């Protein structure tokens, strides 16, 4: 089933979006108890880049070598960043296998991501000046506490609770997906895509990489491909309605925008609340009510609708 949510403030200020998205996602826990993910948009304290990456999955078997391997791979990541000329400010160990690195770097981000992911089991979850993707197994409150999300203040966010249907219950299969290598673009999705393999082959031939077997990853990579060819987020989302088959509602975000698209059957729910200072959307209204504790006027967007808001 899965549940998706998005929130964007229009005043440009920083808000406790880590806590707010947690409340939204926790209220939809029944839609997806397997994993929870966030794409949070703030501002890097020194204007540099932030990379979130993991070196193992939450359910990777803990063999005798596990801790040594993590230590070696973490050292390797930091060495490779330095070798590319990145100046590391801080490395935070969020869990034994997930890390947050802030650094300065003005080179090619694709090269950097590829160089890091060349290390066995390393996966870059997000890379950008505003975006930070956090995802792990369990419900929203579990992930929130694990990654200290109450500290996060930002302008907009999307989130996802996953009920795994066609791929593994692991972090690689959890949303959001970063639109590699397009920095600061991420996607959450509720639905199924029926032309997944066709698009995967096509995008792989175009040089895009996939880190999971999850059909939702296609949307992020598809949008990245379109945007790298010059399309705006809104244009790319409109095209996706004709080119992606299946039933879907997805939310895509950039550092300044948040958009939602619904397929032509409108078979996956989305409720929308829009006010002068805030836009909030979710698979269920109860998630919006978790952060707007008053009677509100909401509606469901119709089939083939693409709506995009700026922060």
């Amino acid at each position, binding site marked *: 089933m899965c549940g998706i949510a998005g929130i964007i403030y229009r005043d440009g200020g920083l808000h406790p979006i880590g806590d707010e998205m947690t*409340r939204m996602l*926790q*209220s939809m*826990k029944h839609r997806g108890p397997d994993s929870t993910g966030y794409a949070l948009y703030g501002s890097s304290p020194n204007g540099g880049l932030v990379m979130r990456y993991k070196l193992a999955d939450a359910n990777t078997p803990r063999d005798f070598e596990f801790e040594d391997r993590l230590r070696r791979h973490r050292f390797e990541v930091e060495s490779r960043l330095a070798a590319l000329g990145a100046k590391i400010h801080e490395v935070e160990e969020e869990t034994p296998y997930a890390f947050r690195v802030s650094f300065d770097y003005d080179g090619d981000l694709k090269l950097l991501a590829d160089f890091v992911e060349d290390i066995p089991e390393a996966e870059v979850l997000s890379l950008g000046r505003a975006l930070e993707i956090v995802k792990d197994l369990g*419900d929203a*409150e579990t992930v929130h506490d694990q990654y200290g999300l109450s500290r996060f203040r930002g302008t907009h966010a999307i989130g996802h609770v996953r009920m795994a249907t066609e791929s593994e219950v692991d972090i690689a299969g959890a949303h959001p997906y970063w639109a590699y290598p397009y920095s600061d673009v991420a996607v959450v999705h509720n639905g199924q895509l029926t032309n997944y393999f066709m698009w995967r082959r096509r995008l792989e031939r175009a040089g895009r990489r996939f880190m999971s077997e999850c059909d939702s990853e296609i949307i992020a990579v598809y949008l990245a491909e379109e945007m790298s060819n010059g399309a705006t987020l809104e244009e790319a989302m409109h095209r996706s309605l004709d080119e992606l088959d299946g039933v879907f509602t997805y939310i895509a975000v950039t550092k300044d925008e948040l958009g939602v698209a619904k397929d*032509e*059957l*409108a*078979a996956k*729910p989305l*409720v929308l609340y829009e006010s002068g200072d805030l836009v909030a959307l979710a698979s*269920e*209204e*109860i998630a*919006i*009510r*978790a952060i707007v504790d008053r*009677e*509100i*006027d*909401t*509606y*469901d967007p*119709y*089939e083939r609708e693409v709506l995009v808001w700026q922060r």
Partner: protein
Amino acid sequence: MAAVAGEKRITYDARGLAEPLAEIPKISEIEGERARFDAKDLTTRTINLELRWLLYEMGVKEVEVLNPGSRHSLGVGILTRCRIRFVGSLGYFGCGLIDGPEIHVTGRVGWSACENMMSGVVVVDGNAGSLTGAALRGGDVVVKGRVGARTGIDQKGGTILVCGSSGSMTGFMMQRGRIVVCGDVGPGLGDSMYDGTIYVGGKIKSLGIDCVPGEWTDADTELIERKFRIYGLGSPPAFQKLVCGKQLYNYDSLEPAERKLVI
């Protein structure tokens, strides 16, 4: 096993059934046949338990529920004549499987409101989500705002009256009853409908398979005017009438083997 939903601690049994041991809150202010209670700090299950206690055990005929908070599955399965007023919005599956109540929702309702409703009236002041009145068997559902996709899917009777617009596949596989949409409707209107009547006041994006224009009669005028009068909706707009063309395979008398030959 225990889990936390928002700030309220909800327990689940091994099957995932929420609050198996929930007790009736008994917090209502009761005055004769009228009662009201504030649902703000209650859970879905305890709200419904309170409603049933009032209607089935306390002889109450009219209940006002404050702060329903868009929770799912409220006011479901009530099989007695009564009046319920939800001051606020409901989530998914609100007012389903009811037989007799007159329900007024001052806010909006989510997906699948009034599903399988057998009789009674539900009036929604705001918008409604997709699948409104799915498999409706009888009674009136009046939505003063707009409704989502597949409104009246598999409808078997009753009337759905929408003052705003309606989404795609409205009246999909409709079997009986009436759908009245004052505004525009999305693509695939009345697709694969078996019977029933659809009235549209606005633009139709496209008709579904076997949905065709119908001949307007005095009975149609009488029905529309009566419903508008009952619910105080003013003067009705001009409507187009759509019915089933009865050209699909399920209307011929061929055996499956014969149909293969024809095709």
